[in-house]
């Protein structure tokens, strides 16, 4: 039993192809991967919107002036 399809390297490498675990589940991995990617955008988008809304009211005028002068 081996997750990669080989439990020994006593093989002719010319006949070896894919060696990653869980071959045959590529579709599932793609679905998980795409969900991770889209989910990341969603989380980031919501957080950034909330952060910018909060930041609009955050600034202390003196501190901002100081920052602007620092260039």
């Amino acid at each position, binding site marked *: 039993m081996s997750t990669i399809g080989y439990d020994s390297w006593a093989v002719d490498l*010319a006949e*070896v192809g894919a060696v990653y675990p869980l*071959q045959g589940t590529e579709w599932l991995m793609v679905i998980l*991967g*795409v969900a991770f990617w889209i989910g990341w955008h969603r989380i980031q*988008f919501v957080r950034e919107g909330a952060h910018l809304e909060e930041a*609009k009211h955050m600034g202390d005028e003196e501190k901002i002036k100081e*920052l602007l002068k620092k260039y």
Partner: protein
Amino acid sequence: MDGNLNALTTVFTEFYYWVTVVFMFLIHVGFCMYEVGASRRRNHMHTLMKNVMIIPLVTVTFFFFGWWIYWAFPNAFPGMGGIGWEAGAPYAPWSENMGTHLGDRITGVFWAAFLLFSWTAASIVSGSVIERIRSSALWVHAVMIGSVWWIIDAAWGWHWDGWMVKVLGYHDAYASGVIHAIAGGYALGVIMVLGPRIGKFAADGTPRDIPPHNPWMLTIGLFLIYTGFWGFYAACNVPVIAPEVIDGQITGTTWTATNIYLAPTTLSAITFNFLMSLSGGLMAAYVVSKGDAFWTFSGGLAGVITASAGNDLYHPIQAMLVGAVGVVIVYKLHYWVERKFKLDDAVGAVAVHGYSGVIGLIIAGFLLWGAPSSPYEGYATINPIGNTIGAAIMFGLLGFLPAYVLARLQAAAGVLRIPREVELQGLDYAEHHAYEDAVHAITEADLAALTTK
């Protein structure tokens, strides 16, 4: 890998592309340094993060669909044959070839070489929009240019089977158009909707210079981009291939390096031309800008970009002159557009990449007129009309247009630009003060410890 020579060729090719990828990483490091150097102190972390996160987002999407587009879309244009489902199948994300596979030693490194081009395309856009775009908006644009639009243009005009090569005789060996013109056009589409930074234009419309906060960082960034550009050039070649493998019109048994169209060139030729076009660009930019450091160094880059379309075949002196001519036009055009249309291109990306790319393609069409675009029979030869149409497709159809439409949608939804208050106080305001508060607290604690000793 039957036979020792084939095995050696395969392993050499695998290692060759891997080395180009490592070199090209420096392009992104350079872009990060450049953008941070150009931005003001109150926006540093946001600017850096905006560019760094292009790396994972473009990488995963280029795995999910970008690489498949390259192989499936060479003829995906009305009247050209449609999507090549069979050709694309080995490069779909669920294919065995897109994983650890002992029978395929090339797909991973070739994918990575193209991926690094994708980062570059997205990063070019990133620079022009600093200090006022929302990260979430830029990252959607990064995915679109990095994993959709540029790779469609590569399939059409930077693939041995691309319809633009076959029908138009389009020739763009080192990506004047397929990377630089499209990215410049894309940046233009976004900044037209995004608008200028606060203070960029006076009340009467006169443009103000917004100098980099750290010119040295900017300079090192540009030099790193030059360095990475060597890897970019090498990655555009097939390092060694036999005529029978190309299976085109080349006769005899002499192995050769080729450009991306599988037409012969040499690494030596492109080394000559890279350095001479860099030099032509630097010299012309120094003169035209009266020694302005930003424009002189950017002019070196613009020189290479202008000559890139034909740098597989040019004579080195031609490469130098093409680079020089391109830079003069680009410099003049940049300031004319800025004054006329009130556009704020923070790093000159539209000019250095977009205009240079377009000019380079047009010049290559004339200078290489009649030369074969491909080793295969029946392809149109290189010509000025084909390359000019190609330039319009790259800059306008696949660059400017989709960027403009997406940016308009984002603007309409209120998710393109940061609020005015935040732009003034700086995107790093919260982090900046958290840092200062932490420094203050730890300094106080250390002083207290000193007095109680």
